[in-house]
């Protein structure tokens, strides 16, 4: 068992490495200018060299993102629960939310900046406003599609709507909640960075903006790699929690004993 697991992870890691190798080769073979698409090796070198400079920016971006993300999750779960439970809320909020999220956040950031000044606050707000929607949608759908049979178990006991939400709706929705977290965390990064590129003196977005006007494309990509890395790191954290919480839903392999 252990063997298979390790082998599988090795495979995956190998494939990921392969992806970067392919990219490297592609650039080398097509003689791609590093102004357009730098080779991963260049990016890594830049990343390592400039890491001390990047570090405070990484911390800044991570902090604003996490803050916005946490708020976004809270808002998303709350809204999702309301929408999933009430038909009126569903009919009212969904159009508004879809409308709101069809709006590019780039257009909204300046408003945040004018209201709250540049820097951390608009970054947090942008992260929040971009990341809560997938959570709302999945929580709402999860609640709306909960099997009535499961709810009946509690209803027959005279449980309140809140009891049912808490004991049936939300647990049932967990796998899709975690799915939406994967989307949400990556969008939270996008939001925070977006806001930083618009108005901020710190953060990866700021670095990338400067680097790009310097035509330092490898540094831009270093910034992108940092973002990707942070996204993946948080994904790994959530995956571990997910494994604990939603193991019941992905029990496929357990049935076949070996």
């Amino acid at each position, binding site marked *: 068992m252990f063997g298979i697991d390790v082998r599988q992870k090795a495979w995956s890691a190998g494939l990921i490495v392969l992806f970067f190798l392919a990219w490297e080769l592609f650039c080398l073979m097509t003689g791609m200018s590093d102004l357009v698409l730098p080779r991963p090796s260049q990016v890594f070198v830049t990343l390592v060299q400039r890491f001390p400079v990047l570090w405070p920016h990484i911390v800044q971006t991570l902090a604003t993102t996490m803050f916005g993300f946490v708020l976004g999750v809270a808002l998303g779960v709350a809204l999702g629960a309301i929408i999933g439970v009430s038909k009126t809320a569903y009919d009212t909020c969904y159009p508004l939310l879809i409308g709101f999220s069809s709006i590019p956040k780039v257009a909204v950031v300046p408003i945040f900046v004018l209201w709250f000044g540049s820097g951390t606050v608009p970054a947090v707000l942008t992260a929040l406003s971009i990341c809560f929607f997938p959570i709302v949608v999945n929580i709402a759908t999860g609640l709306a599609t909960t*099997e009535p*049979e*499961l709810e*009946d*178990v*509690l*209803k*027959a*006991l*005279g*449980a309140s709507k809140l*009891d049912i939400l808490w*004991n*049936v709706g939300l*647990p*049932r929705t*967990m796998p899709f909640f975690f799915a939406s977290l994967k989307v949400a965390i990556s969008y939270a990064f996008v939001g925070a960075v977006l806001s930083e590129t618009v108005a901020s003196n710190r953060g990866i977005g700021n670095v990338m903006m400067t680097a790009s006007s310097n035509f330092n494309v490898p540094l831009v990509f270093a910034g992108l790699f940092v973002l990707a890395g942070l996204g993946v790191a948080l994904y790994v954290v959530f995956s571990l929690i997910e494994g604990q919480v*939603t193991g*019941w*839903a992905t*029990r496929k392999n357990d*049935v076949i004993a070996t």
Partner: protein
Amino acid sequence: MQFGARAAQIESGDLAQVLARSLNSRAPISGIWLACTLTVMRMQPKTQLDRQPRPEGAAATAIELSEVSVTFGRGDRAVPALSKTTLKIADGEFVALVGPSGCGKSTILRLVSGLVRPTSGVVIVGGREVAARAMRVGMAFQNPTMLPWMTIERNIMLPLKIVEPFRSNFRRLRKTEFRDKANALLEQVGLKGFGSRYPWQLSGGMLQRANLCRALIHEPRMLLLDEPFGALDQFTREELWAILQTLWMTHKPTVLLVTHDLREAGFLASRICVMSARPGRILDDSRVGFARPRTVAMTFEPDFVALNQKLRAFIEDARSAAEQGAG
């Protein structure tokens, strides 16, 4: 007759063992309902057990369905499940509901528990119109729907989490007393050690037994049991009959039991209602007079067999009548 031996054993010799286990268990006031029940039983002479605390006439009405019809769906696709069903169950009665498949037995249970509202007619439970919430109802669904993200133990403890007075103490006691309570029940139904498993790790019959535990754990005053023993072998079934009988005799909850097994109905119920084919109505309502505690051996005696045959004939008539009507 040898068939009854096992059940009889549980009612006599095994008691000491069950009781001892319960008392040895860690929780001090682990007032396991069933264990208590059994204690009470042992201390009283057997013949006195079949007492009727209230005279029949005076018993309050626990459940009353008057002219209840239920139709699922609309228009073309409407399925009439019940048509003008009238049924009155006194407090503390044990009523068995038998009838052909699809005749609306589960629907009656769902009406009583408030999960379905009647299309017409009135359902009065505990003196109020469909007020299941006010009662402590224990319901064993036909399909044992355990919540898949919880262990069996936690599934069984669910009513304690929802229903007062347990609810207030749930956070405090769920790791100690309540858990012991759940495990004691599990042990009673032969699922010792399976409390920490997940529902999909149990066999069909095991799930059904866990389902029964969930219906009992909060000591409800009203039990709605929908074929609770359907997927069990005869012996396990008979054991559980005995346990259920004892429980009823001690606490006198109102029980509404749906079953296809006429022996089961005869063994357990004080009244058997036969339903017609869909749309269901109560065709026959027979009182079962056998003395309690009943034993499995009794189910092979001529009186009992005669009752069974009477019921059988009823059901058969109901079925063929319905089929001719439909055909």
